[in-house]
Structure formats: C-alpha cells, structure tokens
C-alpha cells in the first residue's frame, strides 16, 4: 500500500516536471509577447497617478507612500494572477486540438495550470525589472516586506490565482455548448475590475460598497494579497477561509460541468 502510494507520487512528480519544463520552454519562445502582456497591466500605475494628484490636495486618509505601495503591490499581484485559460480552451476546442489532449493519461486541466505557471515564471524577471524601475523613479516609496509578510503574500497570491483560475475554468465549460463563450469572460471581468481593488484600494470605497464587495470573491484576488504585500494589517485567517469557501463552492460545479461537457463533446466545433 505504502509502496504503491510512493510510486504514484513519484509518477505525478515526474509528470509535473515534464509538463512544467516543456511549457516553460514553450513560453520562453514567446517571451517578447509576454513582455507586452505584462506591460498591458499598467492600470494600477495610471490609477496611482490620479489618486496621488487627489491626495496632494489632502484628505484621503491614506498617505502618498501608502498609496504608492498599495498600487505597486496590486500591479505585482495582478501580474501573477492573470488567467487566460478560457481563450486557449476555446481555441483548442474549436480547432479540435482538444481530442489528442483528452487521450493523454493526464487530466487536461494540469496542462493549462502548467502553462499558466510557466507563463508567470517567464514574466518574473520582467516584473522584477519594472518594480526596480518604479523604485528608481520613486525611491521614497521603497520598502522591503518582512519575511513572514512576504511568505504570506506569496501564499495569498497563489490562492488568488487558484481561485480565479477555478472561476474562469468553470465558466470555460460553456465552450462545450457554445462557440463564442469567451464573450462571457467579458461579463465576469467587470465585477473583477471594479471590486477587486485594481482601480482603488477598497479602503477608499464607500462603506456600503466595500461591505458588499467582501461578500464577493473579488477583493481576495487583488486587494487582500496586495495589502499583505504592502505590509498593511489584514485579517489573514478570515481571508484565507473566505477563499477556501469560494473554492469549495466552485469546485463541485466545475467537476459536474466538466463531466457533462465531455459527454456532449463532439471532437470539433461546439
């Protein structure tokens, strides 16, 4: 029994290593594109410009350094939680590339997870460069998070990525029934954009909106990890519990739709 388990673990580790290294090599080929994708995440910096100009006239309740750190952290968190599985899956489904993948003895979802993680690894040096440039332009904002908050922030970012991936992958299942399902992602992106804290720290929202936002999964995808990274105090346990609860809600729906969808799958088109 124990030997069996050990064998399976070793097997899984080997598959993970192969998937990750091959996807990483693939992503490195497209590094120029990935740099451009990373650059297209400048929204937090634009918002920082606006908020710091407002802050200069006083009365935000948030210092200019705190604002700068928050938005820089939000930029970094966003870079490592970008999910695009829906677009890849839609294309794989429409072109019929899904069929050979389905024949492989590895659950398909790990291929996409590996692709996302490898893409993030490809981004890493470039994001580090941008962060360095930010501190060069704005040296007063420099801070180095304590080891524990850095560790927590990495964990929270990973959890945020997992939750967002799960959410989009659940919606992706619509691809089995419709040819243009990625249009739905535009709808899902709206509450994400306005409630996640990408445009402003949630602390600056009116209280009613903020309370409502924390009943949705979106603030946990940017605001919470970013505040941890920026060294602010955050109810850590409560946040991780909320993320786990949302994942526990989405996972069964995802699995159910996946089974139904596969039965409906007809090798090409929808």
């Amino acid at each position: 029994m124990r030997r069996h388990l050990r064998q399976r673990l070793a097997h899984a580790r080997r598959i993970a290593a192969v998937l990750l290294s091959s996807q990483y090599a693939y992503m490195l080929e497209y590094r120029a594109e990935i740099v451009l994708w990373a650059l297209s995440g400048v929204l937090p910096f634009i918002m920082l410009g606006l908020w710091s100009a407002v802050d200069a006239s006083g009365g935000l309740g948030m210092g200019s350094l705190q604002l700068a750190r928050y938005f820089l952290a939000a930029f970094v968190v966003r870079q490592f939680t970008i999910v695009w599985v829906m677009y890849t899956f839609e294309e794989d489904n429409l072109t019929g590339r899904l069929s050979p993948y389905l024949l492989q003895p590895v659950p398909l979802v790990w291929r996409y997870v590996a692709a996302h993680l490898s893409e993030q690894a490809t981004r890493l040096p470039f994001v580090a460069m941008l962060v360095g440039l930010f501190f060069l332009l704005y040296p007063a904002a420099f801070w180095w998070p304590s080891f524990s908050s850095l560790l927590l922030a990495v964990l929270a970012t990973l959890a945020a990525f997992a939750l967002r991936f799960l959410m989009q992958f659940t919606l992706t299942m619509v691809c089995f029934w419709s040819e243009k399902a990625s249009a739905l992602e535009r709808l899902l992106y709206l509450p994400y954009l306005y409630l996640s804290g990408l445009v402003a720290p949630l602390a600056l929202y009116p209280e009613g909106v903020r309370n409502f936002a924390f009943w949705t999964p979106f603030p946990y995808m940017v605001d919470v990890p970013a505040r941890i990274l920026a060294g602010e105090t955050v109810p850590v346990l409560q946040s991780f519990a909320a993320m786990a609860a949302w994942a526990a809600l989405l996972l069964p729906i995802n699995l159910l739709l996946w089974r139904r969808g596969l039965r409906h799958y007809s090798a090409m088109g929808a």
Partner: protein
Amino acid sequence: MGRYLSTLRIFWIASLTAELEYKANFVIELVATAGNLVGSIFVLSLFYRRGQSLGGWSWEGALVVLGVYTLLEGVTSTLLQPNLSTIVAHVRTGSLDFVLLKPIDSQFWLSARTFSPWGLPGIALGAGLIGYAAWKAGASPAPLTLLAAALMLVASLLILYSLWFVLAASSIWFVKIWNATEVLRSVLVAGRFPVSAFPAGLRAFFTFVVPVAFLTTVPAEAILGRATGPWLLAGGAVAAGSLVVSRWFWQFALRFYTSASS
C-alpha cells in the same frame, strides 16, 4: 470616391450578415458596455464624493470626458479592432499578397473591410452620456460650439485610428506585434479622466508621447464650449499629422514586405 463608398457598403453588409449569426453576443456586449460605463462612473464618483475634483473639472465635465472615451471605445470595437487585427494574420500567412493585388487602396481595404455591430452600444451610450452631461453642465448648443466639437471629435478619431494603424502595420517587421495594441488600449484607459487630473510628468506623457489629451480632453473642452483657439489648432494639426504619418508609414512598411512570414 464613389467606387470606394459602394465597396464600403458591400463590405459592411456582408460582415453584418456574418456577425448577426451570433445574436446572443449583442445582449452580452450591451450588458458588458453598460456595466463598464456604470463601473467607470462609480470610479469617478470615488474622486468626487469627498468634495474634491479631478484637475479642476466639474462632475458633469468629467462625465463628458468619460462619454467621449466610451464613444471611442465603441468605434474601436466596431471598426479598428476587427479590421486591424487581421493585418497580423495576413502578414504571417502571406495573404497580404492578395490584398495588395486588389484594384483598391490597400490601406483602405485593411482599415475598412469589416464592420462589427458589437461596438454600437458603446457608441450610443457614449453619445447619450455626452449629450446628457453637456446639457447638465449648461453647455449651449451654439453653432460655433457644435462645429468645434464635431471637428475635435473627428480629429480624435483620426488620431486614434493612426495610432492603431501604425502599431498594426509594424507587424510587417514583427509578426508578433498584436499584443502591442493591447498595451496601447491599456494606456488609453487614461483617457477616461481629464488629462489635467494627472501629475505633471504623466500629463506631459499623455499630451506629447501618447496623445491621450487630444483623444478625450480636448474634444470634451470643445463640447463644453471652452475650447481655445490654440488647442483647436493643435488638435487639428496632430490629427492631420498623424494621418499623414500613418499613410507614409504604410508605404514605407510595404517596401519591407517579402510575402509569407516576412
């Protein structure tokens, strides 16, 4: 000229029939555009609810800027994005050869071949917001104001078109340039706000490097009847200049085109 207009009509009717196969998309686009507008107004209200203002603009004035931005986004998804996104594929597969052989101007063909109705809700909502906010701000519909507003809107559309076209045309050298238009799109988000709301460094960047100021702020000033002569002249000059540059750039880029995967 007449030939171009009649070809345009045929192009657009054909693409409209194709797009209408996906009617459910219209509802999604309408909801997405309206939701995006509500979200943007909410973000604006975050700045104004403390009794502060964005760069000295009144709430209604800022709404006019947002309206112009929404209108431009609508035009982007109706014409710019669906047309110019194909240049990359034409270069990669070499089908640009066929475009160049057609007895019609290649830049015209590439820029106006398809028409996607999904941006129309954005255009309508943007125009509606501009009208409402301008009326609330007390702008008078004097003929001279209307003329200046129309001119500045046309100028801003031409600038937007040229920016997109030059980026898309760069795919003749760099096949993988398409993401660059995403970068452009994400920078243009700054156009949701009056340019004077930014700190000095960014303001200069958004005026001289990426002319976001001429895309939304200057037309909004003209709509509100506050446009001054120098800004109107500058808007017109930037528009004319960028159009000429896009034309020249295309001729120049074509010299380097050597068919498939050049």
